Structure formats: C-alpha cells, structure tokens
C-alpha cells in the first residue's frame, strides 16, 4: 500500500480509473483471502499443538458416543437409530448390585444393578448438548447486547451496563439454581436458566472490544459514507471484535457442563434415576459411607465424575489453544503493520 501513497487520482478524467476499479476488486479479494488464511492459521496452529489435538479427540469421541449411545426419536419418529452401549442405561438388574468393573461391565454396576458404562456414556447427552445450546444462545444475545452498548455509547451504554452489573451481582450457579428451583427442572428449563445467566459475560467482553475497534478509521469511514448503524455493527465492528468471544465460548461450554452436573448433583434439574453425570453422582454418593474398614465401591462415584472432568479438561485445553492461536494472530498483525 505504501507505494500508492501520495498518488492522487481524479476518476473520470483518465482511463486509469478502470484499472483502479480492478485493483480495488483485487484488494477486497485479498482481504477475503486474508480472513480465510487467518482461520486456516488458527486451525493449523491448533493441529500443531498435540495437547489440543488430544483434547479435541476426547471431546469428539465423548460427544459422538453420547449421540449414538441410544436411539433418539423426535415426536415418535426415530432420528438416530444406533444403540452402541451394551445395555439400556435405565434397565435395572442387568448385573449384580455393585458388581466391580469386569469385562462384561467395564465400569461396574450401581446400587440397582444398572450398567455404569452404559449410563456414563449416555450421560454425556444432557450436559454436552445443554452446554452447546446454552453457549450458542448466550453468545448470540450477549454479542448483540454488548455491541449495541459499546457502539452507541453515552446514555444507552450507561443504562445497559448498569443492568449488566445487576446480573453480575449474582454468582451464575446460584442464579441458575434459583431459576430451576422456581420454574422446575428438565432439559429446556436448564437451557433457559443457564442462558439467562451466561449472556452477560459475552456482552461485557464484546463491549470492551468494540470500544477499541470503534476508534479505527475504517469504522469512521463506513459511517462517513452513510452506512447504517446496523450494517456498520454487523459488517465492520463485530467481525473485528469477535476473537475473545470465541475463546470465551469455548471455555464456557465446560463451565455449563459442570453447572448442569452440579445442579443434577444437588438433586435439581433431572428426575432421580436419569443417567446424567451429576444425577448419577448424587444417587451413588452414599457409597462413600462405608464405615471404618468397609470396602468402598469406588467405581460408582469415580467414573461419572471422571467423565465430567475429562470432558471439561479437554474443552479447556482447546480453549487455551484457541486463545493462544488468536493471540498469535494479534501479535502477527501488530508485527506486520
């Protein structure tokens, strides 16, 4: 670009104008290429990070296993016919009560003789799908809210931010717990509760980014050209401020998974007997009280918790890698400019 500097052109006076048009096209194309290569760079830096790749593999295996564990039907119509777990997770008496892990029951059985492996693999369904849906909902709403606040500034910003302060005054888990306690549990109420609690973080992050981006000349240029606010926000401001939101979204899936399991553990959210990680732990937690010298049926509490831990750990490793990748991007741009 620097070679172009100082060259003043008055279009319509010479044939170079047509050439300029061409070069402008080329320029905007190269911007698209740059954006694409930016994503490719992020992906390739994650692939190079072996740990992150391992985390991704764990998340993928657990999610797919949970999806295929039992058939899913929507309104009487079977959408997913596979059933890869060895036993029906809610079927009692498929083995002895508290049978230790063996070949036929890799994770042992629980107090009603249900197969823990089948329960734990299926259990991922609840937490993982709620984590994904909540993150999508909360991030979309939070980004719109925060963008409006940051872009318009002034009194709008002041009012919207005070509302945000109120949301932040309640610890997320406590607010979700109270919402579920007041409105009842189940899949969609849990989604609603965690989405209502989660959006505020995204709003705060994107607002901060937008305050920075707003200073850039291309935003002023777009405004000066008469672009409408909505198109400035969606086409120019958000795409340039979104990176930290992506990092937060990756990390927040794990937080929601733990939150859902915590409510399950507290006996809220799901019916007892539901093969959900936290609910299983709640039901089996009395196996700890063995008395002095008693044997501890450790598998009943170790495996469900280990699954939550593995999934969240993998998700956080991915989040860290995405963070590093995006940070590297910012450094690159800074260094190149």
């Amino acid at each position: 670009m620097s070679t172009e500097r100082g060259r003043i052109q008055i279009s319509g006076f010479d044939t170079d104008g047509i050439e300029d048009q061409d070069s402008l096209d080329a320029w905007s194309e190269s911007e698209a290429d740059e954006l694409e290569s930016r994503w490719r760079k992020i992906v390739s830096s994650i692939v190079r990070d072996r740990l992150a790749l391992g985390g991704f593999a764990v998340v993928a295996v657990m999610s797919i296993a949970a999806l295929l564990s039992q058939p899913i039907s929507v309104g009487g119509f079977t959408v997913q016919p596979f059933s890869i777990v060895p036993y029906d997770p809610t079927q009692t008496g498929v083995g002895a009560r508290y049978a230790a892990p063996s070949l036929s029951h890799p994770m042992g059985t629980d107090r009603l003789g249900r197969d823990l492996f089948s329960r734990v693999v299926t259990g991922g369904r609840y937490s993982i799908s709620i984590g994904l849906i909540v993150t999508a909902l909360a991030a979309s709403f939070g980004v719109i809210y925060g963008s409006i606040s940051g872009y318009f500034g002034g009194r709008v910003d002041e009012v919207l931010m005070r509302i945000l302060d109120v949301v932040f005054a309640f610890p997320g888990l406590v607010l979700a717990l109270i919402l579920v306690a007041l409105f009842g549990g189940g899949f969609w109420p849990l989604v609603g509760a965690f989405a209502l609690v989660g959006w505020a973080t995204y709003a705060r992050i994107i607002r901060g980014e937008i305050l920075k981006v707003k200073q850039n000349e291309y935003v002023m240029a777009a405004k000066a050209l008469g672009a409408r606010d909505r198109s400035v926000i969606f086409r120019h401001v958000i795409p340039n401020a979104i990176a930290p939101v992506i990092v937060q979204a990756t990390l927040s899936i794990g937080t929601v998974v733990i939150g859902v399991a915590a409510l399950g553990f507290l006996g809220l959210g799901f019916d007892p007997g539901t093969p959900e990680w936290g609910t299983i732990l709640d039901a089996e937690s009395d196996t700890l009280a063995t008395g002095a010298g008693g044997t501890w049926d450790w598998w009943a509490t170790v495996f469900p918790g280990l699954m939550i831990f593995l999934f969240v750990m993998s998700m956080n490793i991915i989040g860290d890698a995405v963070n590093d990748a995006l940070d590297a991007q910012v450094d690159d741009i800074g260094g190149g400019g």
Partner: protein
Amino acid sequence: MSLQKFILKRILASVPVLFGVSVVTFALMHITPGDIVDQLVAANPNVPSHEAARLRREFGLDQPVWVQYLDWMQGVLTGDFGEVYSSSRDVSAVVLARLPETIALGLFGWVFAILIAIPGGIYAAVNKDQLGDTVSRFVALSGISIPNFWLGLMLMAVFAVQLDWFPTLDPQTSLLSPSMLWWLILPGVTIGTAAAANMMRIMRTSMAEELNKEYVTAARAKGLPERTVILKHVLRNSLISVTTVAAFLTASIVAGSVVVETVFGWPGLGRELIDAVHLREINLILAITLFTGFFIVLANLLADIVYALLDPRIRDEY
C-alpha cells in the same frame, strides 16, 4: 482525582446496582406461577374463596406490585425478611446463625488459594516454557476443570473415610476453637481449588508480561539480586492484575459454597439455601439470594478500591 473522591463516586455507583439486585430478587418471587395463597389452597382445597381473598388482603397481595415491593423493601431495610414457614423462626435469625460458618469456610478457601497461587504463579513465570511451567500449567488447568462436588467426594472418600485422617461428621466444636481446623481443611481445600487454579494462571501471565518490561532490565542492570527484582518490583505490579479478578473469584467461592457445603454437610448459608429450595421456603430463598447479591456488589466495590490504591491511574479512568 483524589482517592476519597474516587471511593465516594464508586460507592454512589453501587446504589443503583443494589436497587436492581433487590428488584430482580423481588421479581423472581412474583413471576413464578401462583402466589403463597394459591399454594395454601392447593394444599388444602377446602379453603373457601372468600377466605382466600381475605388472606390475600392480609398478606397485601391485592395491592399493586410496586406497593408490595415497597412493603417488602421496608421490611428488608429494617432486617425483617418474614419467617420460615416450617419452623416459624425469623429468616434473619437463621441467616445470621449460618453466616459465620460460610464466612469461615470462604476465608479458608481464599487463604488456601492465595498460598498456592502466588508462589505457584511466580514459579511458573520465572521458569516460563520449561518443564516446571508445563507441569504447573497442567495442574492449574486440572484445578479449573475438576467439578468441585466430585473433588469433594473424592477427598472425603480417600482422606476422611478410607484413611480416617479427618472427621466425617458435622462439626462438633465451636467455630473459633483450634480443633475446628480439622473440619475446615477438606471443604476449604475443595472450595479454594478452582480459585487457586484461576489465580495461578492469571499470576503467571501477568508476571511473565511484567518480566519483559524495561524496568526489570534496568533493575537487573543496576545489579539488584534477582530475588529483589522479582519480589520487590515485579510481584507488586503483577498483584495488581490479580486484584482485578478478586471479586470474580469471590463470586466463584460463594457459588462453590452452595455445592461444597452440601457435599460436606457444612452448616452454612449454601446448604441452608439448598434445604430451602427443596422445602420451597420462599422467604428464606429470597433472603439468601438478596444477601448474596449485596455481598458480591460489596466485594466488587472493595476490589475496585484496592485496585485504585495500588494503581493510581485507575482513579481517573472511572
């Protein structure tokens, strides 16, 4: 801006937030389907409708919502949160009895977090990209990822039940006696783990950043021992970024208390909240929610003031 002026402005800014917290809490009670009289009628269908109307009048439920809110706020401001239906005790008496237990647990969690995170973060930053840093990064990541209820169960199973090092029963002594420490260690470690891990990561990042700055090179160049450079100069600046997340970490400890107290049978506010939820004790739920909100607004206020004390530039930005 002078510090006094900053603190005053910051306190004034908290007032609308506190007001909002009370409105949200009150609204939660009123958007749920059915009021207390509906519940009574559901429990005893023989109540005639004129009796239900009389009860509504008595409870003030026939008034406009804003009148009800003002009535409720008047009670709250004079410390009257109503009574617990099942035991007829004052809600405020129950909350005050449980509060010290939760504060003791939370403080223990905080102290544990600081004792682990600050040295851990310094060690990781000084040995950046070496084996020790990688190991501590992995440990911190595990601390963030482990569900606190499961960690609590596992600690209890191994150290209290199997090894019998710690008591498993509810605390038997008064809160301030030294032997209370035995009851506090396991739940305190459980509640502090996530905060410790979070703080350690922040400490490592900010310290590694500070170490690259020119004043560090200057301090080293003038021949100061590395120990002095790190503990006197770098540490102070790195701690500033830890204070910015102190309020956030406090909120996570408060949320953790709900779960951890239930796991360990700790007689604090968190367990009281869960019991209240299961018994649908609306007055108690509201009081604990409101109290939690006020406490976190206060924690935010304190964190900002400490931040402004440590870094005078902040005062002007507000």
